[in-house]
Every structure is written in structure tokens, then in C-alpha cells.
């Protein structure tokens, strides 16, 4: 049903471009013909290092109809990171757009990937419908861009399970005109904010992600397009609540917020701004096909960390986070008692790509260990209280300290490193770094900065550096990132702009 091209219209409200269903059918058919000419076969993987435009969605449908697996790639990754991902995923093809940097195209070509431009379709059309439910449909890399990549693989079955669950719990009426301002290489933006409404026949309005100039005119955008639904993340709301005039027409019927739970205060502010009480946290994890829990009737009083009930998922809070033992033993926490959040859902990923070891570390007896900490209230609603994971949540983008550490460790004059989360007024969290250097000269610091810039996507670059004599470790020799952070914050960070400025002016 969802894959029979019963799609809605696609609209870019900023550029004014709009493809109706007939045009979408034509664009998909042309791309099927073009992909066939390039030899795409069932099971082949295809990189899409672009997104948030009409062409992305028709490429995705065309690849699916030929039995291929789509791998959306963050277009801010460096050539080093893309090469690393290509080595791990071995895509047959990459479809790029005119904004894809030449060095990315070059590195893909030298990796043996056939690179084609999304706009070069020709006029031939072809039909195909090879979609098998068990086929790999989507791979989303969540970490390891600089080391051992961790690719979450979803089949058509797991994706369809997610969308059917959402439809059962939320219906589609509120999604009639859906706005997506989130990146399409994330599970949140792609699977739920975009594909769920669009493949349910609703209209999708897509913009470039995280553009302040768009957020600052969000109310106008909502009014002009009659937007009925949107999802977002807290940093966008911080900006919109501060600078955008509220919509006037009252078209918004439902609003989700993901990535980090809203505070009760911001929750109520968003309700006032949007003009609807139907605002809620959508708890989502890439491995579970994103939105896995929330509120159906979101008009309830706002509470810090309140998520709600499972959407096509059973939510349990257990005393244990041990994934080496069977969960047969009863280890559930009592209502109100905090513990580790586990999920059981038919939308669970197939596994991590070629990393059965990692899959076994995350999934036990079909239950996924989220790494989040929370409790179930007396009404059975999930309330989140924190995270156990190391990841840094920078405005919804999950950054893994090990990815940054791996790059710094490969710099010859770095002898030890530890990256960690710093509180940030806009993004919620950002990246800090403690590093031990063989010498602490400005020249070495400048060289390390250039080394990191060449290997890390810009959002992963630490914004505060501390050059220290030794990284504190536990008695077992492990790094406690919170302890390192606490030690660093007792002293001023490096004046990196000043040091780099001297390098520039000399």
C-alpha cells in the first residue's frame, strides 16, 4: 500500500517548486530508466549525499522500486569521512546534486562508485516494482564516520511497521500539509517527518534544514502554505519563539518535537505560539524507525520529560541495561522508579550493517536497549530523565566522541584525547575537547586544528579546547568523560581563535 506511489504532492515552499502526483510518477519513471542503464540491481546500495529537495524523494522511490537500498549521507561530511563510509558500505552508485563538492565526487569515483547527477535523467521512462518486504530499504549511519561506521539497516518491513503504527495511533488527517525543516539524512526528518506523511498520500513541504532565516519567518511560512503539521527540535523552537511572529491562520493541528524532551515551560510557549495544544515530544531512535512513543491526545498538561505511550511499541523500564543476559528474569522498575528504557517493536532495525557484534550488544530477545533513563508514571506513560550514552546531542545531531577522538589520536603530535559534551544555550549541547600534546606550541595547535578540519564535518569540530598534561582516568584505566569535563571547566579554555589568528597573520 505505502509503496504503490500513493504519494502526496511535493512542495519546496521557498523556491516555489511543486510536483504533483503525476509529475512525481514521471520523475520516478525517468530515474528508474536511468538507474537501470547504470546497472542498479536488487540489493545494491546507493549513496545520496544530498537531501531536502524534491529530487531526493523521487530518487529514493526509484531506487526502492528497483530493489536497491538508499543510504542518505550528510552533505557536510568531509571527503575523508565519505571515503570511510564508502569503504564500509560499498555502494554501487552515488546520486549527487549540483551542490555536492568536487572532492566528494572525486573520492567516491576513486572508491569505485559510479556517480550520477540527480538532475540528469533523460526522457526515457520505465516501470519497476521489485520491492520485497525483507529487502534492505534504508541505511542510516549513526556513528563511526571516522572509524568503524555503524549503519542502521531498515528493511521495507520494519519501515512499513513504523508507518502503519503511526497511522494507527495518529491517523493522517493532521498530516495533510506537513512541513519538514529537518535534515533528510536523519531518521527523525526522513522516516517520520517526511516519508510517513508523504507515503500516506499527504502533501510534504520540504525546506533546507536549520536555516535561521527560514525559522525567523516560520509563522509566515506556516500561514502561506496552510501547514497542518510540523516536527522540529528544541534549538529551532528557541529561535522561532524569540524571533518569528506566530502564525495567524490557525492551520496547525499537531506539532512534534524530537531529539531532546521539551521542558514544561518551552512546551507551553510552543503551544501559545503555534495556536494548538496538540504539541508533544516524539521519542525517536533511528534503530526503532524514529518516533516510537509520544502522546496521542497531546492536550494534556505539560510536564518536564513527559513522552507518553508506545506508538507500535512496548516500552519497559528495567533495572538492568545488561545486554549479555536474557531478559527472562523479571527486572521491571515500579511506577515512578527510574531505570533503563527498553523497547520492543516490529519496526526495529534489521541490525547494524555487517556488525552483528554491535547488534548483539544492543538487542536482547527482540528488545532494544535504548541507553535512555526514565520511568513509567502511574498511567503507564514514559517520562525521560537522562541518557546513559556518551553521545553529544548537538541540536538533534548525534555526535559520537569516539569519532572525534579517532581523528585526534591519528595526529602524530597528540598523545591522548577526550571529547565530551558541553552545555550550549542554543544547541543544548556542543563539543568540548581535552587534548594532550607532545608540545604545546602554537604551531602544533594550528596543525592539529587543520588536521581535524580536514577529517571532521564542521558540526563535529570542538568549540572549546583544553590542552592539559594528562587525561584523568579511572583506576581501571578508563576515561570518565564527565570527570574530564569537570576537570577542564575549572580552568579557562585555550584561546584558539587568538592562536589561529596569529598563524593567519604571520
Amino acid at each position: 500500500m505505502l509503496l504503490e506511489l500513493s504519494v502526496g504532492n511535493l512542495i519546496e515552499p521557498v523556491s516555489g517548486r511543486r510536483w504533483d502526483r503525476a509529475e512525481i510518477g514521471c520523475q520516478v519513471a525517468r530515474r528508474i530508466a536511468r538507474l537501470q542503464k547504470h546497472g542498479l540491481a536488487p540489493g545494491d546500495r546507493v549513496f545520496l549525499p544530498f537531501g531536502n529537495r524534491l529530487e531526493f524523494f523521487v530518487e529514493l522511490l526509484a531506487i526502492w522500486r528497483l530493489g536497491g537500498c538508499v543510504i542518505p549521507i550528510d552533505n557536510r561530511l568531509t571527503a575523508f569521512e565519505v571515503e570511510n563510509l564508502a569503504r564500509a558500505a560499498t555502494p554501487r552508485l552515488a546520486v549527487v546534486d549540483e551542490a555536492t563538492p568536487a572532492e566528494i565526487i572525486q573520492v567516491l569515483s576513486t572508491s569505485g562508485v559510479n556517480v550520477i547527477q540527480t538532475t540528469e535523467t533523460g526522457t526515457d521512462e520505465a516501470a519497476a516494482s521489485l520491492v520485497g518486504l525483507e529487502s534492505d530499504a534504508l541505511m542510516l549511519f549513526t556513528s563511526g564516520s571516522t572509524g568503524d561506521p555503524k549503519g542502521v539497516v531498515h528493511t521495507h518491513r520494519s519501515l512499513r511497521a513504523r508507518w502503519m503504527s503511526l497511522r494507527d495511533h495518529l491517523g493522517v488527517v493532521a498530516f495533510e500539509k506537513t512541513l519538514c525543516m529537518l535534515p533528510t539524512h536523519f531518521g527523525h526528518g526522513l522516516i517520520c517527518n517526511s516519508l510517513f506523511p508523504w507515503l500516506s498520500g499527504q502533501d510534504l513541504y520540504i525546506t533546507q534544514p536549520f536555516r535561521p532565516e527560514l525559522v525567523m519567518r516560520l509563522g509566515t511560512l506556516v500561514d502561506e502554505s496552510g501547514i497542518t503539521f510540523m516536527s522540529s527540535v528544541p534549538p529551532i523552537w528557541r529561535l522561532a519563539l524569540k524571533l518569528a511572529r506566530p502564525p495567524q491562520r490557525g492551520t496547525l493541528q499537531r506539532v512534534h518535537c524530537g531529539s531532546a524532551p521539551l521542558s514544561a515551560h518551552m512546551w507551553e510557549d510552543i503551544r501559545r505560539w503555534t495556536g494548538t495544544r496538540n504539541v508533544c515530544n516524539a521519542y525517536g531512535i533511528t534503530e526503532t524507525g524514529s518516533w516510537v512513543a509520544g502522546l496521542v491526545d497531546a492536550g494534556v498538561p505539560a510536564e518536564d520529560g513527559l513522552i507518553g505511550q508506545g506508538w507500535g511499541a512496548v516500552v519497559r523500564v528495567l533495572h538492568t541495561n545488561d545486554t549479555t543476559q536474557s531478559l527472562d528474569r523479571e527486572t521491571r522498575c515500579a511506577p515512578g522508579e527510574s531505570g533503563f528504557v527498553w523497547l520492543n517493536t516490529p519496526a526495529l532495525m534489521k541490525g547494524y550493517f555487517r556488525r552483528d557484534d554491535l547488534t548483539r550488544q544492543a538487542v536482547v530477545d527482540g528488545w532494544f536497549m535504548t541507553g535512555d533513563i526514565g520511568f513509567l508514571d502511574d498511567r503507564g506513560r514514559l517520562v525521560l530523565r537522562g541518557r546513559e550514552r556518551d553521545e553529544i546531542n548537538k541540536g538533534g545531531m548525534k555526535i559520537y566522541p569516539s569519532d572525534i577522538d579517532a581523528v585526534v589520536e591519528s595526529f602524530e603530535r597528540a598523545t591522548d584525547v577526550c571529547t565530551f559534551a558541553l552545555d550550549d544555550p542554543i544547541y543544548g549541547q556542543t563539543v568540548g575537547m581535552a587534548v594532550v600534546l607532545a608540545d604545546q606550541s602554537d604551531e602544533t595547535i594550528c596543525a592539529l586544528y587543520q588536521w581535524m578540519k580536514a577529517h571532521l564535518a564542521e558540526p563535529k569540530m570542538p568549540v572549546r579546547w583544553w590542552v592539559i598534561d594528562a587525561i584523568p582516568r579511572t583506576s581501571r584505566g578508563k576515561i570518565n568523560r564527565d570527570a574530564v569535563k569537570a576537570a577542564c571547566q575549572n580552568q579557562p579554555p585555550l584561546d584558539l581563535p587568538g592562536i589561529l589568528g596569529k598563524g593567519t597573520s604571520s
Partner: protein
Amino acid sequence: MNEKWGPRRQDLIRFLREIQKAGLPVESLDDSDELVASGLIDSLAILQIVIYLEDTYGIDLSVRGVDPEQLGSIGNILDLIEQERP
């Protein structure tokens, strides 16, 4: 041009140094250079500039709204302060 704004400009530069990304010294920018396009600050850091204007000069942009361009360069921000200061 720098002398025109006096201590207000110095204070803004000091603030931008706190929120800027590492790669480019703020002192190397002209007053008309675009802060985001030059790579000095992240695009969403505009919110921090808004909070700075509120805290330092009592300018409440949520009331009057703002054109992003008005926060786009050092000179434009200083012009905005001049216009909106209570």
C-alpha cells in the same frame, strides 16, 4: 569606521569572540563582512546575538521582529543598536 562606534563596537567584538568558531579571528573581519558567510559564527548563533542585544541594551526583538540581515554583520548590528536602543 571603527571609531564611529567606540566602546559599543569593542563590547560587541568581545562578545563575538566568546561565541565564534575557532578558524577565523573576529578582528580580521570588516564591519560589513557577513558573520555567518565568513564562517565566524554558526547560523543559529544569531539567537545568541539576539540575547546579547536584550541583555546588554534592553532591545526586545520579539516585539518588533527582525530581518536576519540586520544581524548579519558587525556594522548592521551596531546600526540596529543605534536605532533600537531604548
